[in-house]
Structure formats: C-alpha cells, structure tokens
C-alpha cells in the first residue's frame, strides 16, 4: 500500500459552537461540526460534491482501509438503496478510485 500520499487536514466547517444545555425549549440545538482529517487526492472534488450531502466524511471512512470492490459496492449501495441518483456512472468510478487510493488496502477484491 502506498502510504506517502500527501496528508492534509481539511476543515469541513467552522469552529465548534458551545451550546447551553437547556437548548431544547427556546433555542435551536446546535450540533457541533467535527473536523475529520481528509486525505487529499485525485477525485476529491467529486467526492465532496456527491458524498457529503447525506453524511459527514467521518461516516464514510470509519470502516478503515478497504478493497476496491468494497468501495465500489458502497457507492452502488448509495445509488441503489439510498437513491443517490444524482451520481453518474462516471462519477461513481472516480469516487471509487479516490477511496481506493486514499483509503484502500491494496487489494482489488
């Protein structure tokens, strides 16, 4: 596995907002944004556009390094089961490659 990729942290959103505990009644509850470290690489722009609508980055990489098939099937699952039908076949390919390169285990299957 290649481990020399340039590693950068990307702040997905602004700093954390402190919340009063009794927020339920009169004010909005503010769920903080957590800055998950993200590995930059080819195709990240597509991932950012297509994969962060429904969940955070942390949610996707939680399963650790995985095979190309694993990532391919995840992207398919998003399209088939969760109806992320805005993702084109071409984008699906780019996204799969991004995850396999950055969060892959080196195995195709």
């Amino acid at each position: 596995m290649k481990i020399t990729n340039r590693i950068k942290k990307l702040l997905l959103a602004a700093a954390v907002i402190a919340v009063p505990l009794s927020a339920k009644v009169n004010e909005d509850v503010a769920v903080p944004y957590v800055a998950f470290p993200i590995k930059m690489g080819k195709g990240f722009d597509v991932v950012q556009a297509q994969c962060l609508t429904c969940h955070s980055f942390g949610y996707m990489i939680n399963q650790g390094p995985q095979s190309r098939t694993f990532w391919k099937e995840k992207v398919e699952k998003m399209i088939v089961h969760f109806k992320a039908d805005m993702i084109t076949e071409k984008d699906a390919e780019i996204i799969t490659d991004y995850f396999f390169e950055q969060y892959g285990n080196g195995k195709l299957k």
Partner: protein
Amino acid sequence: MERRSFIKTALSAAGAAALGSTGLNAATTRQPVDNRKISEVAFPEKRPMITYSDRPPLLESTRDVFAYPITPNDQFFVRWHMPDIPTRIDPETYTIHINGLVEKELHITLDQLKNDFEQVEVTAVLQCGGNSRSAFQPVAGGIQWGNGAMGCAKWKGVRLSDLLDKAGLKKEAAWIGFNGQDNAAYYKTPNFVRELHLDELDDHVIVAYEMNGEDLPYLNGYPIRLVIPGYYSDSWVKMLSNITVTDKYKSLFFMDVAYRVPDNECECETPEKRAKKTKPITKMNVKSVIGYPTQDSIVTHNSHLVVRGVAFDSGQGIREVLISLDEGKTWDQAILDDGSAGRYAFRTFRYSFKPTKYGKMKIMSKAINKLGEEQPFAKDIQWNHGGYKYNGIDEVMVEVV
C-alpha cells in the same frame, strides 16, 4: 512514520473515524477495538465521547461507564441514521399521532402523555445491534463500534398498549409502523421507519419521555422515544412522532435490508457465500462487559483489586458471571447485585482478588443466563455481513507493577 502520525492526529482531532483494522484476511473474530480516544468536541448535553461522525451524530461510551448499573445521560451512546434532525422542539406543541387502522385517530401532546395515562417505569439496556462490530474479520459493513454502543437507563413513560387501546385497534390491524422526526438529507432516500408485528409488542414496551429522571437528552431522542426492553435498539425509534397501524407489512429498506442476520442455526455466513434467507436481529443475546479495570491500566501488585462490570440478556435474567485470569482455563464466580433493577437492566458484578504475579494479566468475564446460554469466546463467534450480535467473552489486559 508519516502514516502513524496521521492516525494519531486523526484520533486526537476527530475521535475514532479514521481508525480501522487493516486488511487482515484471516476470518477470525477477535476482541472489539478498545480504548479509542475520546474527541475534544462535546456534543449537546454530552461529555466528550468517542466520535465517529457529526452528521449523523454517532457517539460511543467509554468502557469505564460499565462499572456502574446506570449509564449517565451525558455519557450515553448516540446513533442516528439520518442527518436531518430538527434542532428546535417545542414541548408545548409536540404531538404524537396515532392513525391507520384505529377506531379513533389520536393526537397526543406531551402534557397529555404525562397526565392522561398511567405512568410506568422500566430499567432497560439499550444496545445497538452492531455494538462491538469491530470484532468481526473481514470488516463487516457499518460503524466500527467498540463495546460502548450500549447503556442502561431507567425509562419513564406510558405503555404503548394503553395508547393503542385508547385509539382502538380495528380487527385487521397487524403491523405498527413507528416514525421519528429525523429525515434523510435527500428527498428520495428512504426514511428510518420501523415496523413491528402486534405479536412482538407486550406491556413492557413504552413510549418514554424520561431517562434517568430527566427529560430525554436531545441526542437520545427528545422528547419521546420508543423503549422495547430486551430488544436491540434499531426499533427504539427516537423523536417518535407517528404510530401507524396497518394490516400489511410495508417493504422498507431499513426493515428488509438493514439489521438482519442469516436465518440459520448459527446466524452465520461467509463473505463468499452469503446467506440467502435473513431475519431481523430482534432479541439481545447474553453479554458481559468489564467496566473496571479498563484496557491497559496499571494495577498494583498484591493490592486488593475489584473487577467490576455489567451483564445482561433479553430479559431471561443473568444466572452467573464468571471471571478467568488464565485465558479461560479456569473460571471463578463473581458476586452479582441483588437484581432489583429488573430483568431488563444491567446486572452488575464484582470480583475481588490480589494480583500476585508481575507483568501483563488478562481478565476475562463470561455471563450465563437463566436458560444456560453463555458467551462464547470471541474467536468462536462466526461472521455475519452486518457484524451484528457480537457477544464474545470480554477481555481486559492490565499490567501488574
């Protein structure tokens, strides 16, 4: 090493998101990942916890809370499916709707719930079906929880059956659908609706508004959630707003595909040969977790050490908890609490001894329920693709100095 330092930063910056097992191929189950770092970021009404995601919020409790019978609200695990959770709830106007195949549709406010019905309490364990999923190899799909996607609380509310009685079920009524206020971020994504068959519901199922004497925390489903003692938490719908009675089962992603295990004797399969028939995870199997000492702690030679932990099952009741200090060759009985918290609650255990050998020492706990069902060794638990229902004998490694 660059990669190592990346993992370290990732852990301290964001909690556990980036930590996973690397491509081990041997398909043996092992101990779940333990001792993950807590995040620096606290979520509303919570202390900083192990944090997997902010949208939807996914927070895990640390092992030390399992030294106690009740899990504090501010350390109780959090698992939402959908990212779009209302951020403002008005308790004056919040209403649960009961409709479908009923004689009379009901719209019940919080106030009515608290005043017009008999109030009941139950102490019950809430555990995610995927708790401890990180034990499975190869990696099973879903959040790689350690042991902390569970907790035990005293819930207060109203019996679901009392609400349904008041509405009056029509005779064709067979299924009850529960929907909460959380929504998918995209309009076509299926919502997290659960359905239960009437036969599965008994008087222990309650519509709860209080947890450990306080309003439910926002992240645990304020203002109302379903409590189904003995069952995994996938159907304990949070921010419950709709109860719909039907005669037919509706096909739903989160019922038909998620939270299911192979429908065979061992509830197991292999990645190459997945089981064709599956069934819902429903009732919890017998499990124990050590709360003290925690992984990698240092204990003093010849000191009086008290191991503490919790055990539970689906409500059959815990018969005994055994402790082993020799890799499971010999077992010795721990002392159980009096069980007065009820059969759905954590049963705490304690075991005192003096560590007489220096160096690393493994402490193991195994619970046995009243049916004689006991926890298997981790390595003997067979794989299922969703990584559900792990209940291996618990292990904690400490160092005696």
